[in-house]
């Protein structure tokens, strides 16, 4: 908190709405679940590694879904994997977010036609917050996806909390598409 200490050194009281404080804390430490499915996982690793450096956004990989805030579905989801993805999502605690990375998890991607074993879009099994297009998306695109997610988180309110899965069955939230 070095920066804040310097800025507010004579009075250590900051007046802020609870909402923005909560949202600020939430969006600045998005821990994602470290699990890759296919090609996109390699780009996800590249984003986490030296050149693109996820850490500067407070985005850190966690190996357990219990400790993760975000799930990046990085790659092709197959029929065999679909139920496992669902299980992993259920294990995450609220508030939880999902980024669908790459064409395959968005819509089946190149495997939409004859891919008998490929799930045509991960949104058939779990709700998705941000779709990142590309095959595979560049690391910059994934970072942009995270920035969009942060934007969404900062607009959340306590009075109207983010719809949980049970409540959202009636009306789905409009997903954001990264340019």
């Amino acid at each position, binding site marked *: 908190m070095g920066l804040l200490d310097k800025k507010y050194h004579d009075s250590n009281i900051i007046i802020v709405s609870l909402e923005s404080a909560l949202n600020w804390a939430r969006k600045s430490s998005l821990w994602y679940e470290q699990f890759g499915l296919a090609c996109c996982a390699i780009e996800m690793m590249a984003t986490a590694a030296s050149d693109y450096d996820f850490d500067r956004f407070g985005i850190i990989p966690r190996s357990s879904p219990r400790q993760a805030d975000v799930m990046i579905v990085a790659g092709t989801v197959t029929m065999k994997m679909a139920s496992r993805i669902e299980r992993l999502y259920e294990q995450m605690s609220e508030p939880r977010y999902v980024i669908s990375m790459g064409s395959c998890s968005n819509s*089946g991607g190149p495997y939409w036609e004859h891919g008998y074993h490929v*799930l*045509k879009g991960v949104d058939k*099994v779990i709700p998705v917050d941000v779709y990142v297009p590309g095959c595979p998306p560049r690391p910059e695109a994934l970072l942009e996806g995270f920035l969009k997610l942060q934007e969404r988180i900062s607009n959340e309110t306590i009075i109207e909390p983010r719809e949980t899965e049970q409540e959202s069955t009636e009306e789905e939230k409009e997903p954001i598409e990264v340019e």
Partner: protein
Amino acid sequence: MTTEEITEYLNREYGGNLDPTYAEAGDSWITVSPSVLREVAKTLRDDKNLQFNNLMCLSGIHYQKENELGVAYHLHSTIHDHKLVMKVRVPEDNPVVPSVESLWKTANWHEREAYDLVGITFRGHPGLLRILTPQDWEGHPLRKDYEQQESYRNVSTGI
């Protein structure tokens, strides 16, 4: 040795009547009947002049026009450095081929794959289960007349 020489050698030494097949382009191959497949495979592996110790690839094929299923064995000898393509064909309604798992361990997973995707049963395989698709999957996807199931465990496989 080339395919012709190997066939000639096998016919001379073991009294078979194998005949290599040629296509317009690419490799030639020999076709053996499923009843003698294991015997031929064992000879190919153990004969001093052949010593095919490496099974490079094993593929299942569906010949739709002939209503037949086939298996292609790509053999290679690291000792003599020669290759051979061996094929076996069985009817679609009774696709049983003897397993070569005990000769080349690598055949284990390849045969499971051929069973999974093409639907060939390998007699004598220690655990012939589906390998790529789930155990409760319907049909064999690489058959030419395969029809995709509409849903799997209540999740639609379509768009």
